[in-house]
């Protein structure tokens, strides 16, 4: 009875030991970063070339920017979303299910909560790293108008956290690899297409605009486009607050669900 009561209250076991798990992931990553980075870098460049240069010719300007300038920050943000999401779904699932790294680490003083946090921190790391590299590239292409763009990595820290948490929830529930395709196709792809990356949402039905407000990607795109172009959206504080709320609300669920999976 006592045990049952106690199990209703979730008390996360968290210390700085989660950094050890991050460190482990970084050590493995240091062996593969070249190929991994390339893959994550080529795709946004293809989008920029095809849409910005190809399609963009037919679009004179959006919100006072060339089409290329308009989509560049969104492409940057979306590629960090993909990178973090891949890491915290497939990457984490391999560590969890195939390599059994989680099982190994939790026999040491490191707790399962710290292992999950370590993986989430690694997702955040990738968000910042890939975003910064692409930011550097688009600034060399002359697509960055404002020095405020230097604050983009801070936004990517917050958005990376949210995407890592969302992915981790899915990972902790996933019975197999196939299930991740649903997450990508039904959740991430629609978000990618309807979060104001390729066109402003003003002309969409109101319901679509409201839905976009419920996605972390929309707010991230708004903030980053504002920082890169130097024209912050009027509601930028609301965008920032929304990301904060996502990050706070999503903090415990991955920990609880992963415990449910591994601690039985």
């Amino acid at each position, binding site marked *: 009875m006592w*045990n049952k009561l106690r*199990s209703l209250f979730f008390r996360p*076991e968290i210390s700085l*030991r989660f950094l*050890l798990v991050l*460190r*482990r992931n970084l*050590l*493995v990553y240091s*062996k*593969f970063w070249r190929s991994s980075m390339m893959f994550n870098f080529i795709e946004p460049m293809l989008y920029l070339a095809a849409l910005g240069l190809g399609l963009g010719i037919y679009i004179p300007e959006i919100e006072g920017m060339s089409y290329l300038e308009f989509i560049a920050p969104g492409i940057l943000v979306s590629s960090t979303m993909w990178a973090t999401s891949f890491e915290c779904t497939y990457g984490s699932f391999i560590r969890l299910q195939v*390599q*059994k*790294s989680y*099982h*190994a*680490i*939790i*026999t*040491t*003083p*490191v*707790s399962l909560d710290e292992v999950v946090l370590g993986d989430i921190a690694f997702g955040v790391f990738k968000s910042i790293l890939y975003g910064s590299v692409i930011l550097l590239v688009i600034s060399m292409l002359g697509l960055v108008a404002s020095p405020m763009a230097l604050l983009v990595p801070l936004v990517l820290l917050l958005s990376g956290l949210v995407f890592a948490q969302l992915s981790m929830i899915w990972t902790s529930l996933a019975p197999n690899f196939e299930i991740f395709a649903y997450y990508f196709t039904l959740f991430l792809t629609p978000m990618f297409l309807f979060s104001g990356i390729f066109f402003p949402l003003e002309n969409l039905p109101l319901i679509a605009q409201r839905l976009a407000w419920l996605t972390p990607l929309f707010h991230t795109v708004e903030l980053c486009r504002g920082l890169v172009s130097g024209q912050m959206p009027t509601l930028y504080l609301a965008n920032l607050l929304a990301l904060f709320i996502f990050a706070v609300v999503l903090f415990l669920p991955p920990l609880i669900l992963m415990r449910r999976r*591994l*601690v*039985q």
Partner: protein
Amino acid sequence: MPELPVAGKIITAQNLVKRYNGKAVVDGIDFHVHRGECFGILGPNGAGKTTTVRMIYGLSPISDGELMVLDMDANRCSREIRKQLGVVSQDNNLDPDLTVWENLVMFARYYGLQPAHIREHLQKLLTLMDLANRSHTRVETLSGGMKRRLAIARSLINNPALLILDEPTTGLDPQARHLVWQQLRSIKKQKITILLTTHYLEEATKLCDRLIIMDHGRILDEGTPPELVEKHVGPEVLELGLKEDPARWQESIISRYPKLLKDSWLLGNTLYLYTNHGGKLLQEIQEITPPCQYHLLRATTLEDVFLKLTGKELGATDVE
């Protein structure tokens, strides 16, 4: 009120129960592990061995009863307990992308140790496990036996007060298994307390000072390997591979030699005759010429004990 831990006892389990969805997988077991001994939990797959071990390192909350590990409550002080544990689990869970050395270094950090300070200790562990010349090899390319030895080296990084070996040689070929046994014996010499689960009787015989035999979540008996053999089956067994009428032959042999037989057991066509007088029994039986494919007089092992206690062969539930 929980009883105070008894001095010199590394693990005390009292009426320990683990239920999954109302079904008891560990069903009220009691045992102690003393400081410095190698204690075995022997049983087929599904007996509750691994669940018991998972409760010890806090990966499986206890449903009922009490489990004290290193004088701490396993349900409440899991992290404190894990600081002093070394665990080699059934699955191979080394980091395949890292080298042998990096695997040890990462684990040292998990225990809060500075790898630079314990370099010599880590090197000694690799030498002990016969992996000294492999330290820069990627784990992925190691053989199964080497991986297992590395997992054992990894479990010794923090000089554990209790080393848990959960089926340490399952899945290894015989040669690799013997090498691992040899190394585990040298670890035993250092007087580390070891908890070993296994379904290999040979392993239990070779390594364990004392053991419990488990099946269906319960303890069937407890003792040293020779004690258990002596108690349940005696020193020798005569195996007869009968061609026909095994039950009738069993009956007739039992009634004919009541004094020579300690017990008997029929499994399929094989009749096991447990005895204290093997030579004499064999001689007598050869005179009545039962229709045998083969006969074999051999020393009894834990396998015979297990066969008798559970009514089945260990191999029968073996799903390697």
